[in-house]
């Protein structure tokens, strides 16, 4: 058949030219990922078995010492704890407030699109800039929060210096930055819920709370799970806000594992210790990512 011949031919013979073109198109990306993502990942794990200061020509092999020191240290345990506290508080805060705002902004209110835009705006702004703005908002004497508390007849806690208040400060700033994202995702989720379900529930005599509890919540669970995983990942990688606002202080109260990687590596130049933290952090993050992938698989089943 003359019509099919051209295509048939290319299919049978190995299309070397196309293979070559494929490689040409894919190579820059794959090489960059190899040299700046995969290879350094291996290097990080490898360096966690050495002591090195980045300058010396020799790296000293110490086996598992870095890990032993890492886990046998109160400060490190405190930092792991901080990482989880920060992560937990920001994730819960973002999701709960985000859902509340999404429910509100899903109502047919005039100006709600403008409201959504404003809500989402902080998400696209540089964390460094947001950190600085919030640092001023929390200035214990001349900040917005201090002024508001003064109005309420109380004085501001010392957000900068008090180890008990510094963590809430960075958590609030981080939630504020990421809230809009959760709102928009939740609104998208809300709009996938078939309205017939609400009608049916109403016919059955379910009140507002019951409808929320038995219709909205279950239908939002895939979206919630997605947000949960992405928020955990992003909160465990938070750096710019912490660096700008507290540098991990006071008394390590806001120091998280990511910050510790930076500090050990590029402030103290303890490469082995830094790589150890990075490796442990990677394992935590990998666990969260695996959850995400399994979730995506499950969602494919749903539809």
């Amino acid at each position: 058949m003359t019509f099919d011949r051209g295509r048939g031919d290319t299919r049978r013979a190995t299309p070397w030219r196309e293979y070559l073109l494929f490689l040409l198109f894919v190579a820059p990306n794959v090489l960059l990922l190899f040299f700046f993502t995969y290879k350094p990942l291996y290097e990080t794990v490898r360096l966690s078995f050495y002591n090195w200061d980045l300058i010396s020509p020799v790296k000293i092999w110490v086996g598992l010492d870095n890990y032993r020191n890492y886990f046998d240290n109160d400060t490190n345990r405190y930092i792991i704890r901080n990482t989880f506290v920060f992560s937990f508080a920001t994730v819960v805060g973002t999701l709960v407030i985000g859902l509340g705002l999404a429910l509100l902004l899903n109502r047919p209110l005039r100006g709600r699109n403008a409201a959504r835009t404003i809500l989402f705006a902080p998400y696209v702004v540089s964390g460094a800039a947001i950190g600085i703005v919030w640092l001023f908002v929390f200035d214990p004497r001349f900040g917005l929060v201090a002024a508001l508390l003064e109005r309420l007849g109380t004085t501001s806690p010392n957000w900068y210096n008090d180890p008990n208040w510094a963590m809430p400060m960075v958590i609030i700033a981080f939630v504020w930055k990421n809230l809009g994202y959760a709102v928009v995702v939740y609104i998208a989720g809300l709009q996938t819920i078939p309205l017939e379900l609400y009608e049916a529930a109403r016919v059955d005599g379910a009140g507002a709370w019951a409808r929320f509890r038995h219709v909205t919540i279950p239908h939002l669970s895939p979206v919630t799970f997605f947000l949960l995983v992405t928020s955990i990942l992003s909160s465990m990688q938070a750096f710019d806000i912490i660096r700008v606002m507290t540098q991990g202080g006071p008394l390590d109260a806001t120091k998280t594992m990511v910050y510790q990687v930076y500090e050990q590596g590029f402030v103290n130049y303890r490469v082995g210790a830094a790589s150890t933290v990075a490796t442990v952090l990677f394992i935590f993050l990998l666990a969260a990512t695996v959850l995400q992938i399994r979730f995506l698989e499950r969602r494919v089943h749903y539809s």
Partner: protein
Amino acid sequence: MSTLSRRNVLGLAAGAAAIGIVGCGGDDSPKGSSTTGAGTPGTGTGGTGTSSASTTKFSGVKPAGQVTFWSVHPANSKAVEEELITRFQAKYPEIKVKLETAGANYAEVSQKFNAGLVAKQIPDVVMLSDVWWFKYYLAKTIAPVDDLLKELKVDLPDYQETLVKDYQYDGKQWAMPFARSTPLFYYNKQKWQAAGLPDRGPKTWDEMDEWGGKLQAKAGSGEYAFTHVKGDSYAAWTFQGIIWQFGGRYSDPSFKILLDSQEAIDAGNYVRSQVYSKKYANVTANSETADFIAGTTASILSSTGGLAGVLRDAKFEVGTAFYPEKKQFGCPTGGAGLAIPDAIPDANKVAAMTFIKFLGEPENTSYYSQNVGYMPVRKSAITGAMAEFLKTKPQFKTAIEQLSKTQSQDSARVYIPGGDAILGKGLERMLLNNEDARNVWPDVKKELESAYQNDVRPKLKA
């Protein structure tokens, strides 16, 4: 037993200095310094040294055409540094100085220098503070400057001895003093008067406690009689004076950590009591000098380096005084010096030292001192170029008088890389968290010892 003792080493160094290094006298110095330096005791004794043309490895090396200078412009001194560079260019048009901001504080310039060593992007002159230069001595990345001093006939005897000695180790000179300071007691005369106090600083900490109560009685909400610095702003530096006054110390010269002594515990619990039981002191949220200028605190212990800025910005009369005493007086020196990286070519080293020498000349160090607040590094500056100024600004005079009563810092703070931060964190636990020094110091001691074992001992042996 020949355990390493810093005192011994310093003794050796001083000896060496007397014989060899200081082989340059007033008569050899260039016009600029000899005119103002003439007749001072420093130059006089220096002149007796062997100033004959002993050659160094830098003999005949032509200085490079450019010097890159990494500075942190301590105490907002960028404009003053720029003016000094302008003056340098007028005198040495063939050596171009490039001033680069290498960070916001001493820790950052050190980080940047370290990173630069990795990336092989290093300056010719780097500003390293009291607590950082030794790390680069250990890493063998800064050059000993003895030969350069000799080659360029730097008038070493006219330098303040305590300030020069701070950079001596292993019989060699590793940096030269530049932005050097001591802690100084600043007080707000207006508030002092309102509380009915005499116009002077408290003689002792007991007197401070008494005065603190009076000042606090007059203070508004959120205001304090005294404010402590933050851990990362060298709390371990100002506290070092206090621990000495209480008869303790951080460590001895051979790195034995002495924080478990009763004196150390008393000193720690004393500053804690100022905040938590006597309630007249707090810890600054950002900068103690900013609080002082804003009038939210009546007194602070802060570097002389900020003096010019405080006098300029404060809307009230400022008094300065020595540290209060306890069992005895104690006051450390501090601030930063200028070092030359080892890896740069000889021509750059010569150019770098030419610049460092220029900065140290009496009229220049005096200009720097008057406009920023750091100590003039030259003896002749005080009697010469600064004499008039000191008459009109008694606050500076206090600072300079205190200098003669200072001593070198404890090894745990200045020789253990990160030691200052470890001590500062311990102090924050007492000052911010109200933890008993009895529980805090043992942790600090452990951490300092482990840092010494990991970062210092192996390198000293090598």
